[in-house]
């Protein structure tokens, strides 16, 4: 164990407070054991000279797959305080080692969840990426009283024009699995490619595209007041879909700046009162009340995470051969999150690291009240550093053109970075580095890189094993391979601040040039 700790410190000469001691009392310092080096660094910044913090996962190790040793159990037993991140970062065996061996008087804090009360922003864990996309439906709004509409009227919404590299099928799968096609361009568009909705109705559909590229779909409305009267024409609108390609590089129908819809709930809508066809969307704030966006200003993002293989089921043969890959926005998006679970990589948003630090401060004070002033002062100084760091990351990433902000990485560790600093998680080899990628995952990754024409992909220094797949795919497509720190340090970045600065600089270096 001594050798291991020495190895950690060898790469950390510049870091104050790296201690070779593992037992409490050998230096009179508070002995704090954490699972990862990142957490140990945060603790050391708060604790200063009063604390000796060390991590169980060794330098450069992967916390997702680290298996604890008997020596780890001894270190935990001697610790005055222990900090873990969250179950989904560390394997259960590691958490168990800590829970089973920690002294009953030693605070044992799981930072990710507890930090919420300090203002940490927590993202639910996405289980099914294919569901983490726009939820797109059809809607009729307005009463149509001025047009003589009643409750028994109906509104016809027809797909009258489609251009694009492939075919579009909008269909509903009914309760017992039977697909019902609304618009289907595989046999050309005709009078049959229409649907009838009552006033104020709303339905959700699957939107399937057979090839990546840009599509323009024109929907035309008309009102049927029954009684054999002719249909009253309403307006039409042309919607733009960016299928698999960078949506910010696509011009909307009016040629101006696009409103890109990539998440939340949107309905392609015909308005009985104004006669217009537009999108009714909660795009501005997901979950908020929907508002109107003109069709001509829209780009609807159908990302590569919506890639699915056509099932071997004759009922879905209209989508193509079994196993062929299509992009599909699904009719229902429930189930995208794992119930009760959160993405554990909170520190990729510097604001969350600030919450961690305050929780660490209060935990150390509770164990070592005499050090209150030291911990408070250290924390205040460090929080100032983190504020600067947050600004640095934000202003650096803001220089990356909007159509280049795509992250393709070795594992799903950068959701917080994306959310906080305006990046997009376009794809990764595997969600969790403890998993082997499937053939389908590698194909999807390869498609993603090809379709988006990304400038670079990002490996993590501590995940060389997982990086080989990504490096191979990047090499095949002539794409640059860069690096981002995810869960661990290496010899070049020995502190959290260094790691995040590197990430910001690297993203700018690899993605920052205009296409």
């Amino acid at each position: 164990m001594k050798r291991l700790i020495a190895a950690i410190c060898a790469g950390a000469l510049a870091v104050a407070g790296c201690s070779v001691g593992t037992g409490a009392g050998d230096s009179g310092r508070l002995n704090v054991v954490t699972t990862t080096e990142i957490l140990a660094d945060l603790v050391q910044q708060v604790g200063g000279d009063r604390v000796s913090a060390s991590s169980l996962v060794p330098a450069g190790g992967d916390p997702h797959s680290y298996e604890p040793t008997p020596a780890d159990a001894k270190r935990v037993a001697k610790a005055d305080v222990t900090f873990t991140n969250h179950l989904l970062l560390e394997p259960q065996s590691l958490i168990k080692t800590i829970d089973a061996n920690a002294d009953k008087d030693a605070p044992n804090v799981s930072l990710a969840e507890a930090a919420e009360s300090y203002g940490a922003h927590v993202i639910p864990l996405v289980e099914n990426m294919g569901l983490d996309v726009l939820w797109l439906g059809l809607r009729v709004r307005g009463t149509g009283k001025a047009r003589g509409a009643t409750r028994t009227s109906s509104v016809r919404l027809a797909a009258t024009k489609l251009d694009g590299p492939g075919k579009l099928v909008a269909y509903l799968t009914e309760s017992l699995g039977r697909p019902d096609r609304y618009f289907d361009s595989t046999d050309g568009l005709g009078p049959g490619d229409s649907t009838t909705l009552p006033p104020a109705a709303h339905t959700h559909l699957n939107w399937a595209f057979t090839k990546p590229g840009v599509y323009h779909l024109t929907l035309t409305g008309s009102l049927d007041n029954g009684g054999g009267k002719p249909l009253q024409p309403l307006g039409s609108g042309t919607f733009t879909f960016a299928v698999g390609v960078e949506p910010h590089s696509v011009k909307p129908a009016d040629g101006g700046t696009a409103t890109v819809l990539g998440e939340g709930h949107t309905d392609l809508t015909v308005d009985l009162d104004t006669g217009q066809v537009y999108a009714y969307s909660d795009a501005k704030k997901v979950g908020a009340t929907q508002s109107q966006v003109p069709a001509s200003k829209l780009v609807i993002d159908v990302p590569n995470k919506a890639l699915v293989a056509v099932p071997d089921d004759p009922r879905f043969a209209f989508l193509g051969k079994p196993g062929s890959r299509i992009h599909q926005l699904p009719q229902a998006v429930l189930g995208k999150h794992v119930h009760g679970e959160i993405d554990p990589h909170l520190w990729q948003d510097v604001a969350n690291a600030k919450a961690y630090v305050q929780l660490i401060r209060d935990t150390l004070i509770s164990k070592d009240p005499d050090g209150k002033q030291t911990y408070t002062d250290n924390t205040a100084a460090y929080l100032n550093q983190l504020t600067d760091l947050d600004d640095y990351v934000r202003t650096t990433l803001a220089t990356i053109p909007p159509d280049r902000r795509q992250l393709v990485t070795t594992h799903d560790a950068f959701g917080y970075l994306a959310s906080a600093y305006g990046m997009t998680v376009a794809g990764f080899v595997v969600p969790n580095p403890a998993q082997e990628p499937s053939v389908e995952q590698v194909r999807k990754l390869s498609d993603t890189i090809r379709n988006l024409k990304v400038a670079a992909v990002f490996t993590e220094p501590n995940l060389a094993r997982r990086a080989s797949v990504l490096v191979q795919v990047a090499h095949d497509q002539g794409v640059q391979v860069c690096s981002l720190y995810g869960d661990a340090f290496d010899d070049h970045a020995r502190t959290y601040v260094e790691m995040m600065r590197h990430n910001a600089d690297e993203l700018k270096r690899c993605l920052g040039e205009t296409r």
Partner: protein
Amino acid sequence: MRRTAAVLLTTAFVSAGLAPAAVADSVPPATERRVIANGHVDLGPQFVNGAWTIQLRDDTGDLPLWRPLENVVLQATSKARVAVPDDPSYAFLGTPGAQVWVIPQVQQAGVVWPGWNTQDAEVAKRVDREVTWSLEGVSGPGKFTLFLNSDFGKPAPVFDSSKPFPQETGIDVNTHVHGNWTFDAQGTYLLDIAMTAKLIDGTSVTDRRTLRLYVGQGDAAAAFASTTPTPTTAPAATDTPAASTSENNVSMTWLIGAAGVLVLAAVGLGVARKRRA
């Protein structure tokens, strides 16, 4: 390919999913009993006089209304009757060709359309991330399942009364969802459900009540007379009448005793946590 209104979500959905919740909040709770066999309703939590309470949002009238669960029976009439398809994915419904009742995920004309939502304004504001919805037990003459249609129509199960209880699922805050409710025999079904959440202020809330459903063309109001063990974890808001009309009741088998369930409901979130595969 031309569609009719039969499979569309109609007027009700608009008010249910998207109307400002303040509209619903201003409507006083209904006190009368109601059998609902057509139109849109949603199960969901609400703060009633400050108390976290599972209610039923009723959009079948002119104005949306939150009704106490005790005052409602949802009826699946013969219009919801379908044959089990010859598809191994749906084998959990029964043998191919067998008659079952399916209240569909997408609205079907003439069939009640129950969903669940966490969109009450105060709920959306105060709940941290998600509500845990658990099924603590089911009594009824047959099997009950709730499932969603996932990619390409494959069923994604939420609840299944033939599996051990409690069962639970998460509802993201400020969302509104519909699923397929299935029953394989006629009669009264009592769903013992709980909704639990952690609030942003760090406290936890839970409520546990009975949702009554009646399957078939018979006298659905008889389901009001069916009683369930009164949960002790929730404020006793059950004004359930005594079971004096037991001759009207269908045979009832509690699939699980209530006693063992209460503790599990309280710690449900912790129990459900699992390592990502």
